[in-house]
Structure formats: C-alpha cells, structure tokens
C-alpha cells in the first residue's frame, strides 16, 4: 500500500514538472492561432477563443519567411552531413589506427572544445573577407566542416566496436575504405544520431555567424530573419508566434525521429568520457 502511494506521488511530481516544461511550447502554439486583439486582451485564455490560421497564411507577407526557412534547411543539412562524415572518419582513424602523434592529435582536438567562440570569431570574420567568401554559403559551410566535439564523440564510440570485426574483414581482403564505409559507418549509428541532432540544432540556431557573413536578404538564414522580424514588426505578435513555432519544428522532428539512438549515443560517450 505504501509502495502504491509513493508511486502515485512520484508520478504526480514528474507530471507537474513535465507540464511546466512543456507549457511554454503549448502557450506559444495556441497563441499562434489567436488574433492579435486576443493576444493583447486584458482577459487571457490559454485556448484561442477564435481559432484562426491567418498568422501562418500571411507570414510571408511581412518578410520572406519561406525563403529563410529553405536557406536554413539547405545549409543545416549540408553542414550536418559533412560534420557527421568528417567526425566519423576522424574518430575511426584516431581510435583504430596506431601511429606516432595520435595521442597528441586527439588531445589537441579535445582542447579545441574549450576555446570560446569569441576568441576565433573576429579573425575568422577577417579571413572570410580576405578569401572573398562574404555573402556566400562557402563562409557558412567550409569553416564548420570539422567539429572537435563530433570527433571526440565518434572516437569514443568507435573504440567500442571490437577489433576482431575489422580484422576479420581485412582477412577477407577488404581494404580500409571498404571497412570504413561498409562496416564502421553502419555500426556507429548511435553516435552518428547524437552528433546529427546536436549539429543540426547548433547550425539551425546559430545567429551570429550568418548575421556577420551573409549580407543579402535573399540568402539570409532563419535565425537572423527571426531577429530582424522581431525588431521590425514587434507588434504583430500573432505572426511572431507563428514564425517562432515553425522555426522549432524541424529540430523537434529530427530529435523525435532519432531519439532512441540519440539517448543511447550520448549516454555511452559521456559514461566513458
């Protein structure tokens, strides 16, 4: 009986904290279906009293939302795929090959994670200018191709793949390129999922770098667009709620899609790390 009572109390606490956690999302979503007059009204209701879709339908009238969204999607997908590939192949070489300077190289990669963004962003900005990459997606993609965090995660993961599997493939005559692409990549899917989710989120939400290097409106990304929109039409709350809601959707979808492998992935590398 006592066990049952404590079970109910514990579940209740978790539900209440969970409701608080989810509430901002729910409030934003409901508000995005409200009229501006209702959002501004003195008497507030969580549910829209009059359910409208105008905020979504008219979003593109104020600013080029669809364009920003597609730009962000393109850049984020490309950067995520590149980072997943480079992290996995670097992680493979660093964990399964023995060579002079390997530990030094790995230590160096680890230390890159401690360097604040602000130390390198000014010189990188000047370098991009002198390379003539301003206002081009090269500036967004090339400097983001490798990730210290990604390499660290993948090294931890691939270390747990047994050497015997690789040895067996070698005896069967497989070369290293085949081993990496056909054996290691598929086996590292938990680690890959966690890097994919983090990298997707980081690129999607990055505000400062695209703001600095992209000048033309039609090439701009969503995070910057959202900030501009907020400054310009700060009274059209309904449209802002709708734009914010849509900007959250892709990352949440990616997370829900990869959730299982993702949790297994970060858990494994953090426990070992």
């Amino acid at each position, binding site marked *: 009986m006592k066990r049952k009572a404590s079970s109910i109390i514990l579940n209740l606490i978790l539900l209440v904290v969970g409701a*608080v956690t989810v509430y901002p999302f729910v409030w934003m979503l409901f508000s995005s279906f409200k009229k501006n007059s209702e959002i501004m009204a003195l008497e507030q209701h969580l549910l829209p009293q009059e359910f409208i879709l105008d905020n979504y339908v008219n979003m593109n009238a104020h600013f080029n939302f669809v364009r920003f969204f597609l730009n962000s999607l393109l850049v984020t997908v490309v950067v995520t795929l590149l980072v997943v590939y480079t992290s996995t192949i670097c992680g493979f070489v660093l964990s399964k090959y023995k060579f002079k300077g390997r530990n030094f190289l790995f230590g160096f*990669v680890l230390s890159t994670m401690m360097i604040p*963004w602000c*130390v390198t962003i000014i010189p990188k900005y000047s370098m991009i200018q002198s390379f003539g990459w301003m206002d081009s997606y090269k500036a967004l993609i090339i400097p983001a191709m490798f990730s210290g965090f990604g390499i660290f995660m993948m090294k931890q993961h691939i270390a747990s793949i047994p050497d015997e599997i690789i040895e067996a493939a070698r005896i069967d005559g497989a070369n290293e390129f085949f081993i990496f692409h056909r054996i290691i990549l598929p086996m590292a899917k938990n680690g890959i999922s966690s890097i994919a989710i983090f990298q997707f989120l980081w690129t999607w939400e990055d505000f400062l770098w695209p703001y600095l290097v992209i000048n033309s409106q039609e090439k701009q990304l969503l995070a910057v667009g959202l900030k501009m929109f907020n400054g310009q039409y700060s009274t059209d709350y309904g449209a802002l709620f709708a734009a914010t809601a849509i900007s959250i959707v892709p990352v949440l979808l990616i997370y829900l899609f990869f959730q299982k492998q993702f949790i297994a992935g970060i858990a494994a590398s953090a426990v070992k790390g």
Partner: protein
Amino acid sequence: MFKKTHPLQSKSEIILRNIVVTVMVIYFTIFLVVPIGIAFAGSFHEWNPLSGTYNFLGLANYIEVFTSGLFGKSMLNTLIFSVVVIFFRVGLGLAIAYAIYSTLVKHKSFFRAVYYMPVVTPMVAVAFVWKFMYNPQIGTINQIFGLDVNWLMDPKTALLAVMIMTIWKDFGYAVVMYMAGLYSLPADALEAAKVDGASAWQTFRYITLPLLKPMTLFVVITSIISYIQAYVQILIMTEGGPGTATYLASYIIYDEAFVKYNFGYASALSFVLFVITAVFTWLSFRVSGTEE
C-alpha cells in the same frame, strides 16, 4: 607516443590515415590555430576594421579590461548566473533523473523525452517565447501568478528572469546525463547495500551519489564552459539592460566586436575569458580530486 607501428599495416590503411590526418591538421590550423594567433596579436593593438586602424598599443587593452567597471560588473553577473544555473541544473537534473530511474515510475522514455524537449529547441526561438511570457501586459507568467512584475525591465528581476529561462532550457540535459550514469552503476554495490540493510536515503547518499561523481563533474565542466560563453538569451531578451543589470561577459565581447567594432579590445576580453574558463575547468578537476 612513439609506439612501434603496427606490423600488418596495409597500403590502404596508410593512405586513409595520411589523408585524414593531413586534412584534419590543415583544417584546424587554418580555422583555429591561425585565428587564435591573429586574435592574440590583435589584442595588443587598436584594431578597427571600419576605420582600417591597426596600431600597436602594448598592454593598454588588457589594462582597460581589468580597470573597466562594466567588465567587472559583467564578470559578477556571469558568476552569479553560472553558479545559480549550474546549481539548479545539477540539483533538478539529479532529482528528476533519480525519480525516473525509480522502479515506481513506468513511462520512463516518455518523461525523458518531455524533459529533453527544451534542450533540443533553438535558443533564439525559446528566448523569444520567454520574452513574450515575461511581457507585463500580454505575458502568461504575470497572468498565471496574478503578479504585476515587469520582469525584463526591472533591474531587480531581469537577471533572475534570464536565469529561470536558462534553467528551464538546460536542466533536461542533466536529467539525461544522470539517467545514463544511473543505468551504468555497478549492480553489486547497490545489492550489497540492500543486504546490509541500508535505508533508501543511505544508499543514495553513500553509494549512488559518490558513484555518480564523474557524471557530476562532466555536467559541471561542460556547464561552466557553455555559461561563460552564453550571450544569445541576453541579446534577444534584454540586450544587457536595464542599465547593466544583465551584462554577461560574452555579451560585452559581442557588443564591443560587432556593434562598436573594437576588434582589439574585444580580442583582449576574449583571451581573459579563455583563461578564466581554463582556470575554472582546472579547479573543478582539482576540487573533485580527479587526475586526468
């Protein structure tokens, strides 16, 4: 470091290794080592890209950092912000993780997914949502609690408001980390405690908590590194205001570099912040007594 090379190295292994190591070294040199060098040199100069100035100043930028009242204030804010947010992130994370881990709770993956949702949501977007929630007229927080507080415009509550939002966004990360830690605990230690008749609290206090120490250290260190660099929530919610109430160290660097274009001074600030990050990371290792 100078181990004998593997006797059975194939040609394709050497090729793959050389390509990967070369590309990696070139990449990190161009986009990390060289920029750090440029920033370090720049921190001793008056450097403004708009007017094209690059004049040697010696230590003047660093002297300004340490005598600037705004930097002092921002470091104090950063300290308060980091200590409070890390305390709640770790405390709440551990408590919730332990509750979900308990055999009394069934829908573990549901709860885990719920608590992790804010972590995987873009900061720019949630900062906007919370800015609306804190709005004294239309905001839901005053409505729910029947308060009349101008959260983000009152110097007394602005930093608190940003901290609450950051705790909400980040504690789920600690939940997932602690759950991973809890599931990898050695079963025999917990079993032995049970056999010896330890109470639930004793088991937690003397067995579980010490065994989770590496995970706590991991969460604390990654938190220190990320909070010293936090600026997006400030940029969106308060822009440092009202007055200087919510200036965080990284926000000053953003402001000096990309609003005022004082690249030299901003670089000096960045290096000071880098050293502070390194010292705090080292201290956390020392305090926890881990040698690695």
